[in-house]
């Protein structure tokens, strides 16, 4: 218990998370607890009635109508117990569900405000586990855990009181084995927890193995690795079996042991209590009542260990949840300036950006002026192209006075206002499980079908949508149509175009579209782009040759800047990439002229 309370005080921060819910529902929780106490008090009356009846029978002083009265009294008490039990179940368990709902919604609302630094740090799977496993253990701790805890504490005290009232020394004798149970439970619980975690890890490893093996089934078959994979799976399965049996060894001791201790107490009561009865210290009725009380005590004793572990788990989970709620977006805005009317000029000045936990900056000393027209960004993987896009879409935080919109520092502009100027096509396309029309009109739910179709046509996807059985009403997702990578990218482009915003950023968002189609799209875009800022990232140079300006990023720096022809003439690095992508040389130049290339 002591350990338990120390644990509680350590987890004060985490617990402060549930305080508001307790305050809001104080009446509910309070009456719930009262109901539990009332149930316990009434429950303890039943053995007393039994005692009276048995004593009466022993002395032959009881009559048949009296016995009936005893019986009816028990039923009456039981009825009120049933009503009160329903009461606390509804009140306290209901509270735990309300608490769960509140935490769930708070967490989600909070997640919506976090920036992509956070989401890079925490995987979706981790956050999903938080919302399913951790919330569940919090709910159990504050539902069944709280009930069982209150019940166990109160029952123990009350039962011990009643027992001591009958015979104090016999009570001490009866509960003497209980501390052994408490100690053993604590020791074994720790081991149980460790082995349980091991089993869970083993289980997720097994799952991951199966997933990755089936995901590359084509390769497994091509390399005829079926037997080998089966063998590996077999080894892992055997390990899993072994760990489960190790877990069962602890479990198999813990639970029968609680029964063993309870029965030992009963044994002591028979031996000593029986003696006391024979010696006339207590009546037979008292002896019988005593055994009834002892029986009542068994459960709270067993429950204490269980309740402790429920709370430990619940509070650990609560700590994890509060860890997420303590995270705050690094995107800040003073909101001191009003959004300018125009969006004709974006300026980046001496921008250096380093991801948290990394030494090398992702972008280094970038200075750039962007005006309407196409800005092409090329460079190899990891050169900082996406980081630049994230910053311009206001998804990643920047230092003051590094990025300007119409000469206003973007950190002084409201984030939402700024974002309302930007349409974005990310590298990994996320579409929602809804109709194609709903996906395209995601940011502009009022759009007419005509507008949706026009956007789709510009993105060169209209014809393919029309070929589907339900056209624009086709559903995307597991049970809906299966889209190719290129189709998904073009739908995402249509979605961005429909926003009709002055800045369009395509972050390598046409990589799965074949070159022919990409050309068509860029040609179709030319009308749309005329007085907008359009930033297109591509790993292919060819589609960007007509861009107003091109920049080449290399290791976070702008290695070259200018129009295509100009760059071809003046920048050897760009020329090398271009030549490399298009020329017919069988081997690329041995000593390539790339700046800052990996050291040999």
């Amino acid at each position: 218990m002591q350990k338990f309370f120390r644990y509680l005080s350590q987890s004060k921060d985490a617990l402060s998370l549930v305080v508001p819910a307790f305050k809001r529902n104080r009446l509910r929780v309070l009456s719930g607890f009262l109901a539990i106490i009332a149930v316990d008090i009434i429950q303890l009356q039943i053995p007393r009635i039994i005692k009276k009846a048995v004593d009466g029978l022993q002395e032959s002083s009881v009559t048949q109508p009296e016995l009936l009265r005893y019986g009816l009294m028990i039923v009456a008490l039981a009825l009120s117990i049933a009503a009160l039990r329903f009461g606390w179940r509804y009140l306290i368990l209901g509270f735990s569900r309300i608490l769960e709902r509140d935490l769930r919604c708070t967490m989600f609302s909070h997640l919506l405000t976090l920036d992509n630094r956070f989401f890079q740090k925490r995987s979706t799977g981790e956050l999903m586990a938080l919302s399913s496993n951790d919330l569940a253990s919090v709910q159990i701790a504050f539902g069944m855990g709280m009930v069982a805890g209150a019940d166990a504490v109160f029952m123990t005290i009350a039962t011990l009181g009643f027992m001591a009232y009958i015979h104090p020394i016999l009570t001490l004798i009866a509960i003497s084995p209980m501390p052994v149970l408490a100690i053993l439970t604590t020791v074994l619980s720790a081991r149980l927890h460790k082995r349980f975690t091991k089993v869970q890890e083993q289980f997720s490893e097994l799952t991951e193995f199966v997933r990755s093996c089936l995901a590359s089934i084509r390769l497994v078959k091509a390399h005829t690795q079926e037997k080998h994979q089966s063998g590996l799976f077999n080894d892992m399965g055997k390990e899993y079996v072994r760990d489960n049996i190790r877990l069962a060894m602890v479990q198999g001791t813990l639970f029968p042991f609680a029964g063993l201790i309870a029965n030992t107490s009963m044994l002591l009561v028979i031996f000593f209590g029986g003696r006391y009865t024979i010696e006339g210290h207590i009546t037979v009725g008292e002896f019988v009542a005593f055994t009834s009380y002892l029986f009542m005590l068994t459960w709270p004793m067993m429950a204490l260990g269980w309740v402790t572990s429920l709370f430990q788990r619940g509070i650990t989970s609560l700590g994890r949840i509060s860890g997420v709620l303590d995270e705050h977006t690094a995107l800040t805005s003073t909101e001191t300036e009003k959004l300018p009317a125009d969006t004709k000029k974006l300026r980046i000045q001496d921008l250096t950006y380093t991801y948290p936990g990394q030494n090398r900056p992702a972008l280094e000393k970038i200075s750039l002026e962007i005006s309407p027209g196409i800005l092409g960004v090329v460079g190899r993987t990891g050169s900082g192209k996406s980081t630049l896009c994230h910053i311009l879409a206001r998804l990643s935080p920047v230092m003051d006075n590094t990025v300007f919109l119409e000469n206003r520092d973007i950190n002084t502009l409201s984030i939402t206002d700024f974002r309302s100027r930007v349409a974005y096509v990310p590298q990994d396309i996320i579409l929602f499980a809804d109709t194609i029309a709903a996906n395209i009109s995601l940011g502009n739910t009022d759009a007419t079908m005509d507008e949706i179709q026009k956007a789709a046509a510009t993105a060169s996807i209209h014809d393919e949508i029309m070929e589907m059985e339900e056209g624009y009403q086709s559903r995307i997702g597991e049970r809906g149509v299966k889209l190719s990578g290129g189709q998904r990218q073009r739908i995402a482009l249509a979605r961005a175009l429909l926003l009709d915003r002055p800045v369009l950023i395509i972050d390598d968002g046409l990589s799965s579209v074949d070159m022919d189609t990409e050309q068509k799209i860029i040609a179709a875009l030319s009308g749309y782009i005329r007085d907008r800022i359009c930033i297109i990232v591509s790993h292919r140079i060819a589609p960007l040759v007509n861009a107003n300006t091109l920049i080449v990023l290399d290791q976070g720096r702008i290695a070259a800047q200018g129009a295509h022809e100009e760059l071809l003439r003046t920048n050897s690095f760009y020329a090398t990439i271009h030549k490399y992508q298009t020329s017919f040389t069988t081997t690329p130049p041995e000593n390539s002229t790339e700046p800052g290339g990996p050291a040999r």
Partner: protein
Amino acid sequence: MKHDFGYFEEDHLSQVSDVKLWKRILTYISPYWKQITTAVLLSFVITAAGLALPYLISLAIDDYIINTEITRLDRISGLTKIATVFACFVILGFLANFFQVILLEWTGQNIMHRMRQDLFSHILTLNLGFFNNNPIGKLVTRLTNDIQNMHDMFTSIIVTLFNDLFRIVGIFIILAWMDWRLALVMSLLVPIIILNTVWFSRLARKAFREIRTQLARINTYLQESLSGMEVIQLFQREDEAEVRYRNLSRDYLNKSIYQIKIFGIFMPMIELLSAISIAIVIWHGGGEVLDGRITIGVLVAFLAYMRLFFQPLRELSQKYSIVQSAMASAERIFQLMDTKPVMAAPEKTIQPSPTRGHIAFKNVSFGYNRKTRILHDLSFTIEPGETVAVVGPTGAGKSTLINLLERFYDPDQGGIFLDGHDLKKIDTLWLRNHIGFVMQDVLIVPDTIRKNILLSHEADDNTLEKILEQSQLAEFVHSLDKGWETKVGQRGIEMSAGQRQLLAFARVLASDPRILVLDEATSNVDSETEIRIERAVATTLANRTGIVIAHRLSTIRRADRILVMDKGKIIEQGTHEILMAQGGMYAHLQNLHMNGTDVK
């Protein structure tokens, strides 16, 4: 233990009485009949030991505690005797319980292990068409959660089924033996208990299912939102997302509260029935004591047995739902096990040797489904030692060509011949072992680099060193502390995309097949790796019949012949110079790459 985020497939819940299903399950259980029989025998011991205890108490009361006919000393020594017997039974029960838990866990785990292994090996034999139609997530669930469901049934149900059944039957027998009249009165309660349980099980199951489905909905939406967070924020859909999530959570809360109410009625109901039974014992049994038909000891024993009787009833419905979900899992598992590979192997397969490497496609037509045909009447031959590059826009059918050659699918019409033998007549495993494969994805086996290169082949250190040199992997491998003994994959180091590609080439060099199929990766790698890959391509293709889906111009140039595909047909073929001179599709594609403009 289950981390499936509450996803639950409700498509078809089976009936527990499904005889066929049980027969299938029995075939897995029957090898362990010895262990199961022992467990059942242990159940007998546990029940007997447990039920003996109240009887011993009643004996103690009647024969010694209230027996004034013998001396006090005799009474106390008699009590000691009973206490000793009691202690023996307690220890016996404890040991039997412990061994039963371990034995059943061991048996259950081994049965599940076999089932999982059978299922996994079976899934690996299925052909690719199956994997296209069944999402990996579903198959993973079969192998992990569904198997786990069945295990839960094995350990918790089989034990408790016997333990509870023996206990309930045993209690009735003892009661009837002690006092058949009282037992008869008690048995009047049985129909009420059964009705109550059946009614409750039905409601509870429905409530559980609704809760689980709702939780699945919440999690699906959460997953979608988390992976689409960027999009939600950029398109400013935060408010909408929040409202939707809030509504989903509210429905979940309502469904949980409904479940709480159902449990709130049922659980106290069982307690109420238990109290009523005690009242009956007091009233009716007390009357019989007054009439001298039974002793007080018998009455006390009755009271104790009634408590033991109601204990298992509380969990009965919960256990019923475990059985339900396990049977649903069993049905899904066996359904999957019954899925036959679509491509039946011929009665007699041939293993042509030695291979020359002559490939012929004769009038091949093929589609992945009936609606869309991918290849149309395709014919071409490749001479031994010749390298053929296949080029064409996305969706032209290039990858399908490879799928057919590897015999992942059979052509709908026409045939494919290796050295004059129809692929359908050749042993599939032999075929795949004799065609080298380099695809865009690379299979990483969670094992050492050496094992990853050699797969099923053997090679001495010198040969391996030579392979590493030729495949350009030497530098990478030598930079590792443990060299080629370094583990990669799930429990080892990560390899970069480029290194994976090189590994694929090393594999081909290790198996040294006559035919090489190469699907060039389009992914971006840095120039240095690019050079390495080019060298590896050159070494690997030398002296082999090669089909290359080419993206690198250097590879295309190296080919002896170029096949230009479009919409499932070969529209041009020849060398680079000839095709360029023709000014057809090939020239058009090349110009796109070169200039970003079409010179046609």
